[in-house]
């Protein structure tokens, strides 16, 4: 019963968030800077997480996140209410990230390059954040990391993530479960004395 209640609450929260983002995007389309600031504060983590997971470079991810919000502002009047405002926003970010990868001559699909999630401009990171973001995610494959980050940070459903990354849903689900298992086992090891 408790689990069902929690699930319901999560779904209600997710629907409330969807409506809020939708409303904010419409207001941004009318030139409302306060709405733009609120939209940024609610979604900057998600946009940055997607960019970081695709580019694997904190500087480039920061640039793409900035470009994404500038693009959203400029094209705001063209936004129309539809299913998932978060998926819309992340599609803009994804295309900018892919475009950057192509222009820089790197492979669109970044392979198993070194994972570095901690910005150099942020030397003071708590040990716990370091463990989960850096060491934990570094133990995963690039795809597993991307899917787990997107699920954890953006609130997108697996189906939406599959569409965003142009992957079959079954691949997304299996990589998600496999990655989460690895991450949990690593975190468990870290917590043990």
């Amino acid at each position, binding site marked *: 019963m408790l689990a069902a209640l929690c699930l319901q609450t999560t779904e209600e929260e997710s629907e409330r968030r969807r409506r809020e983002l939708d409303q904010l995007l419409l207001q941004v389309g009318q030139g409302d800077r306060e709405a733009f600031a609120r939209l940024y*504060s609610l979604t900057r983590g998600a946009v940055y997480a997607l960019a970081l997971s695709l580019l694997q470079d904190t500087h480039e991810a920061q640039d793409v*996140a900035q470009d994404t919000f500038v693009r959203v502002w400029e094209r705001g009047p063209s936004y*129309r209410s539809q*299913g998932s405002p978060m998926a*819309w926003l992340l599609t803009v970010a994804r295309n900018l990230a892919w475009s950057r990868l192509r222009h820089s001559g790197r492979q669109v699909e970044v392979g198993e390059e070194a994972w570095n999630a901690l910005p150099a401009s942020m030397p003071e990171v708590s040990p716990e*954040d370091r463990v989960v973001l850096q060491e*934990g995610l570094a133990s995963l494959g690039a795809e597993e990391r991307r899917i*787990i980050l997107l699920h954890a940070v953006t609130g997108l459903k697996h189906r939406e993530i599959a569409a965003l990354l*142009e992957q079959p849903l079954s691949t997304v689900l299996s990589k998600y479960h496999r990655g*989460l298992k690895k991450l949990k086992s690593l975190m468990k090891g870290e917590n043990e004395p």
Partner: protein
Amino acid sequence: MTDRELELKLAAALERTAPDDFEAILSRCGVQNGSVTELKELVQDQKVIDVEAVEVKPKKRLNRWLAAACAALVLAGAGGGGLIYHQSYAVASVVSLDVNPSIELKVNRAEGVISCTALNTEAAAVLFDMNGGADLKGTKLDVAVNAIVGALVREGYLDSISSAILISVEDNDQERAQRLQAELVASVDGVLQAQAPGTSVLSQVLDADAPALEYMTFDSGLSTGKSALVQKVMEMNGTLALNSTDAFDKLAALSVEELNDLLKAGEKRIPIGKAAAATAAEEYAGTLAMNSVTTDVDPELDENPPHYEVELKTVWGEFEYIVDAFTGEVLRGQKDLLNQSPAGQDSPVNPAPPPAAENNVWQDPGNSDTISGTVIDQETAKKAALDNAGLSESDVTDWKVEREWDDGRLEYEIEFWCGTTEYDCTVDGHTGAILKCGIDHHGNSGSGHHSDSHHSGAGTSTNTATSADIGQEAAKAAALAHAGVTESQAVKLKVERDWDDGRLEYEVKFEVGRMEYEYTIDGATGAILEYEWDD
């Protein structure tokens, strides 16, 4: 730590390290573009299939209808050529074909194809050999539809015994729509009779001028036809009245076969879907980490209990799992395959068979016909089923035969009808023995439905259907009463009907706290034949 807690921790850590440079962004933000642009312009690099999906369809369609009508009017006014333009390029009907791939065809009044669009990634793969659908432009509608259906069969989308294809015709001329619908159904039925006889052909006519569907989502990849089918399910299960976009999303992700099963069974719950069922089976089998394992999932949502049949194809054979359609619990199947396989690796060069499989079976599950003497062919299996039923081929109709691999052994699942009686048999693909045979009488008397089934040990069974059957509820009550528990106390309660040496039995299993109970109840008398309590 639960999955959710771990995700929250990860999200919080990323939120803390994500740069906050709103001021820098604001300094780059100039004047907004005032003109209204389509989302597809904003979403650059998006493939065509996605662009089609992100547009708000009903509005788009209305605009295109208006545009087509206006173009026709202008050109008609300009001279005789206008009429030709109208007939060639104006969209008269929109035909969609949905299985899981969804494909949309726009046709003119002369039933020529103006465009063929893949609405999702799976559809793009189906149309790959037809230049993404462009090769079908200019062909007659029935030719295009037959080509697509042929490709769907080749790609394996219609190979299950219970596959379903939905044909929807959208037109503001309902008479023309109904004529097209009838023609297409007859044509597709003809193709499928020869290539995929188990497939159901569903069809519907939609009014192009009807009010817009409410639930068109960003990445749904849905045709209007499938949206309408989803809405029918939502009407049935009550989520339409709740305006639940979540229910729409979940249902839209299902195949036409699954949606059709839900409607047939009047099932109001929403199943987990094929992908989640495959993952559940793979987790149970311990093969999630193996890239070489492929899955084939067949939904059986109109059976009791509703379930998915998942076939895992591994290097050492094929294994079948039955997954509860709503909880994802694996109800039947071999656990931890890797622990059973001496090779224990992803792609062993010379894998040893799991203990349960025979050497001459596991090595070549996909091409067993090449193993001389080890398997029987389809005709022999059909004859075994007929002999078991005491019928001859001329007595029966509507054959459906499917080859299945169950834990490394070949089985034939055979369905046929004799009058109003439906037979459903499982025949051992190696010995021809009848492993299971169910009989459903679809007569007009009583409830109109009565089911018998029996198992046979060594292929010497007879149809010993009996009229003395206490029923599942009585069997369950007998077991619960013996255990001294009430139904509300019991969890994971399962009742299975079974035949053992010609005797009808019920196997009742449930748990209370840490205690597991298992009963075998005489199906004719309600007597307890066996029971076991396990702490």
